[in-house]
């Protein structure tokens, strides 16, 4: 094994990890806000990828330009999901936890089924885009440009999110609602509105990730499943509810995944991720940055 192989692995792992973080942050945000795990998170990603694909296929809009449009569309979609589905699920008088799980899980199945019905199960790809298929290489280390762009977008999104949550009124309202939803009602903050915007924001972030991913990954109705699983691990690793935990968790997952393949056969690369995850759960059950 050469130094080149190790650097290449870790660089690829870092790029992938930043993207994993961006995919997972919406999940962490929604969970932190209202203790609801969105089991349709992978399907949100799928919808975003399809939206990017169709914008490209019908209007020749490059995924890079489509990204803000897709994020905006997903924002509306996320808010609607809260207002039309989740709002009622959290009101359940009995077995509230189960009702929430099944409502988002059911939503996932419906979305997957509808996608297969309307879009057919064919694998779609964006064949040529500004960045797609381009590779940047220094000293024998190859960095694919779409993933590089994804990593930059991820860092930018997390920075923006940091300022948004810490420096704006809405961000503070978000934090306050998360701390004590009952108390914020007393100071005149509409809980439903904050939750709806929170869902919108979470969905918009995964929308951004989906648009970037559509540049280098194929799209089909089940595409969300394998990424959603990694997103759940990322969130649990980084700490449930912590936005920056998702960022750190994503990087850890990406690096551990890449590092594992240097030692173990590639078919066992998930073993590293789950081993680290188990370790965190044993030693620090709330996750690396969890505050619960």
């Amino acid at each position, binding site marked *: 094994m050469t130094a080149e*192989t190790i650097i*290449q*692995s870790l660089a*690829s*792992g870092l790029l*992938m990890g930043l993207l994993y973080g961006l995919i997972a942050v919406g999940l962490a945000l929604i969970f932190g806000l209202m203790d609801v795990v969105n089991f349709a998170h992978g399907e949100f990603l799928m919808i975003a990828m399809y939206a990017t694909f169709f914008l490209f296929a019908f209007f020749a809009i490059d995924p890079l330009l489509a990204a803000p449009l897709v994020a905006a569309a997903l924002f509306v979609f996320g808010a609607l999901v809260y207002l039309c589905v989740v709002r009622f699920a959290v009101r359940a008088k009995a077995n509230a936890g189960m009702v929430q799980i099944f409502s988002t899980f059911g939503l996932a199945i419906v979305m*997957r*089924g509808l996608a*297969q019905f309307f879009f*057919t*199960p*064919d*694998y*779609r*790809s964006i*064949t040529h885009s500004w960045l797609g*298929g381009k*590779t940047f*290489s220094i000293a024998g280390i*190859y960095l*694919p440009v779409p*993933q590089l762009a994804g990593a930059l977008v991820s860092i930018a999104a997390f920075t923006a999110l940091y300022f948004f949550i810490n420096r704006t009124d809405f961000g503070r309202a978000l934090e306050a609602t998360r701390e004590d939803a009952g108390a914020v009602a007393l100071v005149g903050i509409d809980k439903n509105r904050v939750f709806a915007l929170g869902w919108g924001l979470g969905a918009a972030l995964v929308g951004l990730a989906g648009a970037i991913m559509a540049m*280098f*990954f*194929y799209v*089909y*109705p*089940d595409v969300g*499943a*394998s*990424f959603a699983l*990694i997103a759940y691990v990322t969130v649990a690793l980084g700490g449930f509810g912590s936005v920056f935990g998702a960022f750190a968790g994503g990087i850890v997952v990406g690096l551990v*995944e*890449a590092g594992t*393949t*240097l030692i173990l*056969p*590639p*078919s066992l*690369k*998930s073993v590293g991720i789950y081993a680290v995850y188990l370790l965190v759960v044993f030693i620090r059950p709330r996750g690396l940055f969890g505050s619960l």
Partner: protein
Amino acid sequence: MSITRRNVLLGATAVAALAPIAARAETSEVAIGVIYPFSGASAQIGVDAQKAFETAAEIINNKYDFDLPLARTEGLPGLGGAKVKLVFADHQADPQKGRAEAERLITQDKVCAIVGTYQSAVAVTVSQICERYQIPFISADNSSPSLHRRGLKFYFRAAPHDEMFSAAMFDFFDAMKKKGTKIETLSLFHEDTIFGTDSSNAQLKLAADRGYKVVADIKYRANSPSLTAEVQQIKAANADVLMPSSYTTDAILLVKTMAELGYKPKNIVAQDAGFAEKATYDAVGDKLEGVISRGSFSLDLAQKRPMVGLINEMYRAKSGKDFNDYSSRQFMGLIVMADAINRAKSTDGDKIREALVATDMPGEQTIMPWRRVKFDEMGQNNFADPVLLQYAAKNFVTIFPEQAAVSEAIWPMNS
């Protein structure tokens, strides 16, 4: 209403008009189970397969002037013209769901035979259920060699398996070496279920027997979100030939990742699967010029056997795609099964099994380049000769074996 002459006449006319419908309803139907992934990661395969089976059923149930068993008659003459009815079931690429669905097809839908399954891993469980209920099973498109070696009496496969396919690849390498081409090292790249494992085992054994050096043997997890680490290893090995055994999703990702990491393999000789699918070529076809895949079907055959082209047209009208290695084998799977049921003159499992054992269908009466369809004692058809196809100028052309070849191989692939 009084009974007038006019009403009697009207009534009689109505009865006369309805009579043929009633008579038609009396003709029995023969239910055949078709078990495929209609949802989940490989749903695209199932949806295309459904169209292939429907094309076959249409040819069996109606009159067509093709030199194909049951084409020139309506329905199954051996069963009084009974029509073939397909009952589709979804296994979602999951062996356990396959087991449950096969059981449901047999006990509730009363199918007399089952055809399946795309994933070899699912064929394992489905064929076990069929064996228990003594219902014949045809592996239309499963290629794992271990499937027919389990001593099952109700298991049949008309198509070649991966040892035959891999042998063809190594025959091809040997032939190329004789012409003075340098082929010494191989990289194997295969997914981790029975398909990839069996395929790589066959290739490892052949490589050892014939003196090729395997410089990388990468087993990866199917449906991976990223294959970067895997590709780095095959890039480092940089063998003369890369031999992938991958389903569609991984095939697309493999080719994309190779390009991203700046690796241009000298040659790719693929174990079909993802490398036979239109989706792969739609996505990354520009990077696959010159890729070679094994197959059991080629549209070239239409030049010699016009019905292949005509049946392909029927399939394309339904699916919008040309027959590929999978849809053609699926089509033949149903034809072979229906032919046996017709000769058995019964829907009894044992009788159909006996008819399958007695099958001897000349190659010209199929849409495949096979010599014939005749099963050995393990239910495998050893007369199904594989071919190697090369993707060149957006088309697949047969390049091996020589008697079937329509063009010389481009080697190395990028030349």
